[in-house]
């Protein structure tokens, strides 16, 4: 009988290979249907009116003119009179009309009056923000940093940080809704197919079982699409009122203003080492804004745990807009702050940072061995020892090159996932899960696991996901999807196979325990002459298919990965322009199911990282309280010409595979900001303290260095 464990390396025919994603042909030919592409008969378009003020009390909402506008079929309020808005872009009301242009006109015709209140939208320090806007979240202390500083051979102090950035999913947030009686269907762009019914049901006062969520593909989420959001409920109400399907996806400016922001984190750091580079003490005071609320606490220092350390964090409440989880919440900021300070310290010792990080590797704890192997691998791929030069050592001419490195970690594990595997008498196979594929390749991972388990080619398995009528699976966040769905699918497919083997056993000698499914046949283990082709074996089911269930199982998965990245940049000292020449990643994620899409995750993370390192910032104007770059001309994304050479090395084989499956969405996006910042410091001999590293900041840093010299 088949067992649940992952097959041994020599018995894997699909797992760990480079396999093209199952939905690639649909996506590449433009035939994949996103929520945004759903056109229902008689469908209307929804548009919203937004608050232009960052902080204000709504005193009047008048929709009478809007209701009479051409094409308008329904109007609904989202906000109420008397309630305070906390950011510009807050949704006030929505309309549904026959065309998008008519809906936009009508939304504009809604009259809203406000009592404007004072706002804070700048990324302020606790001192600048004042007590009303500051809340100290935590203080952590281990050992005693102060005496340790007194005895250290090298100490540096610095301020580092990164601003608020946005998710900028290319498919904006939103959905199409349609009612039939008291049944609601929502084509939602979501990371949480199985969870949304539970949100719509109370809001619409219907049982959750009446809500059908459909998301076969979705155009990016990155942590910002876990909920129905106010626009989801407004859309459903517009549908109900008009009796028509309604499509309402956010306009780009709206998307950038409110539909996702990564909190800023800044820190003043003091860190010290002995003359041999041993890290002895860390002290940091950090702050940052997540909009009106407070986001999670950073844990500083990141990855390394020196004996003496203390840290304190203050949350600044602002009217910048609401934060949402952004790929690896807090980690990219913690990595930037920690790895920048540590490389500055290495430069002060002075020491090659590679040697410095290796010297302190035991301070990383249980992942020390993984980090060490990765550092050595990445150094080899970067040719670090040959290329590295001490900080500030310049060559003739305006173009200077530099190297930087960083370490990161992430949990993973598996969310709660249920899978049904059905084997039909005609030999066809389906696996069904109420999960979703955000573009990570989850669909293909599911297919590979089922096919491998049943000894079939990938094409023989139909993967059903993106629909809450399939067995419930968790939301896709925190790199928990691949752990959840791979283990539930493995178990479901195994359970189904065992039932099949029991049916087939009489024709193959009677002992199901002795049978296995390999290469498209059911055969007796160790006797290749006794077998039944898959189709004939399934025919023994007569007319009733087998359906077996499987759930997330902890023995197939794990959590806690380590990764190392390095960057090589060139900086034009005259213009301040930074170019990424090369980046290297050595990344662990346990057992890799699909090497091709795993590598794509890391390539994608590099590129997202280059973007936030060099370009991204939600620029707010304190005068008006508004976002100045809520568009894609000035909310800049890196392009194909900006990426340099990217090298990805997945750590696999003994010591990695045997840990089981671990997710990969978050880890590789953590270090790019830190490695690029470190490489720039190495190139130009001075730290650009905050991201994004724009030409003007490079020139300012050079100027301050010149002033000091």
């Amino acid at each position, binding site marked *: 009988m088949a067992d649940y464990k992952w097959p041994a390396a020599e018995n894997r025919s699909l797992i760990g290979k480079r396999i093209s994603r199952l939905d690639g042909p649909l*996506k*590449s030919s433009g035939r994949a249907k996103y929520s945004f592409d759903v056109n229902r008969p008689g469908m209307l378009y929804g548009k919203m009116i937004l608050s232009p003020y960052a902080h204000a009390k709504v005193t009047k909402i008048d929709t009478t003119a809007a209701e009479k506008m051409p094409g308008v079929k329904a109007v609904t309020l989202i906000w109420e009179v008397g309630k305070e808005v906390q950011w510009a872009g807050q949704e006030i009301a929505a309309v549904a009309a026959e065309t998008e242009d008519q809906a936009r006109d009508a939304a504009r015709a809604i009259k809203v009056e406000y009592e404007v209140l004072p706002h804070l939208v700048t990324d302020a320090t606790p001192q600048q923000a004042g007590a009303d806007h500051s809340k100290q979240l935590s203080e952590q202390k281990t050992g005693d940093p102060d005496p340790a500083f007194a005895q250290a051979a090298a100490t540096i102090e610095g301020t580092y940080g990164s601003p608020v950035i946005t998710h900028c999913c290319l498919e904006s947030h939103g959905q199409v809704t349609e009612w039939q009686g008291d049944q609601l269907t929502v084509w939602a762009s979501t990371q949480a197919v199985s969870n949304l019914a539970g949100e719509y049901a109370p809001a619409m006062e219907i049982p959750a079982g009446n809500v059908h969520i459909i998301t076969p593909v979705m155009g990016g989420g990155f942590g910002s699409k876990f909920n129905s959001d106010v626009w989801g409920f407004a859309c459903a109400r517009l549908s109900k009122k008009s009796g028509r399907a309604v499509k309402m996806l956010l306009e780009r400016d709206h998307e950038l203003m409110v539909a996702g922001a990564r909190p800023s984190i800044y820190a003043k750091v003091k860190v010290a080492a002995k003359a041999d580079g041993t890290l002895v003490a860390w002290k940091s005071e950090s702050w940052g804004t997540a909009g009106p609320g407070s986001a999670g606490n950073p844990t500083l220092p990141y990855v390394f745990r020196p004996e003496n350390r203390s840290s304190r964090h203050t949350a600044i409440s602002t009217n910048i807009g609401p934060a949402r989880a952004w790929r690896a919440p807090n980690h990219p900021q913690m990595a930037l702050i920690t790895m920048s300070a540590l490389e500055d310290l290495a430069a002060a010792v002075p020491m090659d940072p590679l040697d410095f990080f290796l010297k302190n590797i035991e301070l990383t704890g249980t992942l020390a061995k993984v980090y060490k192997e990765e550092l050595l691998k990445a150094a080899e791929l970067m040719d670090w020892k040959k290329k590295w030069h001490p900080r500030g050592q310049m060559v003739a001419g305006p173009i200077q090159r530099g190297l930087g490195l960083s370490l990161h970690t992430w949990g993973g594990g598996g969310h709660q996932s249920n899978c049904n595997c059905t084997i039909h008498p005609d030999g066809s196979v389906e696996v069904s899960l109420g999960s979703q594929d955000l573009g990570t390749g989850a669909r293909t991972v599911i297919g590979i696991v089922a096919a491998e388990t049943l000894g079939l080619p990938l094409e023989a398995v139909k993967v059903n996901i993106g629909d809450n009528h399939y067995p419930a699976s968790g939301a896709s966040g925190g790199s928990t999807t691949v752990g959840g769905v791979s283990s539930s699918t493995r178990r479901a497919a195994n359970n189904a196979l065992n039932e099949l083997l029991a049916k087939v056993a009489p024709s193959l000698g009677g002992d199901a325990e002795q049978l296995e499914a390999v290469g498209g046949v059911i055969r007796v283990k160790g006797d290749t002459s006794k077998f039944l082709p898959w189709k004939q074996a399934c025919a023994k089911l007569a007319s009733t298919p087998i359906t077996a269930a499987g759930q997330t199982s902890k023995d197939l998965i794990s959590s806690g990965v380590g990764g190392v990245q390095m960057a090589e940049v060139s900086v034009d000292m005259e213009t301040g322009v930074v170019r990424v020449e090369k980046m290297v990643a050595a990344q662990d994620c346990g057992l890799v199911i699909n090497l091709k899409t795993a590598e*794509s995750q890391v390539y994608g993370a590099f590129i*997202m990282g280059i973007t936030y390192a060099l370009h991204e910032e939600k620029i707010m104007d304190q005068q008006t309280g508004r976002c100045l770059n809520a568009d894609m001309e000035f909310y*800049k994304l890196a*392009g194909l010409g900006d990426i340099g050479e990217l090298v990805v090395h997945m750590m696999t084989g003994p010591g990695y595979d045997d840990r089981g499956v671990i997710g990969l969405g978050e880890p590789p996006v953590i270090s790019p900001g830190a490695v690029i910042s470190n490489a720039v410091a190495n190139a130009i001999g001075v730290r650009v303290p905050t991201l994004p590293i724009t030409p003007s900041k490079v020139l300012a840093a050079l100027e301050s260095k010149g002033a000091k010299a």
Partner: protein
Amino acid sequence: MSDHRSNGSGNGPGNPGKADNANPENAKPEKGVSRRSFIKGAGVAVSAVTMLREGLLSPTAAAADAKVAGPGAIAMTLKINGQAHKITAEPRLTLLDALRNNLDITGAKKVCDRATCGACTVLMDGKAIYACTLLAIDAQGHDLQTIEGLSAEGALHPIEAAFVDHDAQQCGFCTPGFVMAAKSFLDAHPQPTREQVTKGFGGNFCRCGTYVGVREAVLDAAGRMRGGRA
């Protein structure tokens, strides 16, 4: 400086595939500094803030001598993938909205809606244009090709096949735009160098970060198309 910054309109030298009449604004070049040439020349020295403050991003007027149509709905005919489609719509309708909303041709995506990201790329008379920034009425009388016209249902064009093989899509939302940009690019550069590919796609953005795959896919597709498999 990033190549795409100087090439936001897709008209720059880096992206020769894009047609110059993509945008009504470009139909009649004005004297002096146009918004586009200003942005193009401004480069990294001009911050977003400055440009917004100075009003450089306010919509400029369309060509003054255009025939008056509307504002009510009018009949239009669009030739898409070799087939004539009649619609009745307000003249302010963009080609992209006409395709997606009126004709259910949804391969081209709307992302920035203002000629920055390339997600809406279609071909007009064989050249890549941004469908979000061309009025449907102005697209009449031209040959339009969308990604739906590139390959028959169930079959893949060599560019599409190369995108699959090199995993040049993650969420896939930007992918149709890249594929159409690639079609136009490879028609103009059947034997592109790696350098040309790197420079030639500045008019398209991907948030998931698929550029490594796109670069390889375009180079590979060039070979496949030369090999007569187109």
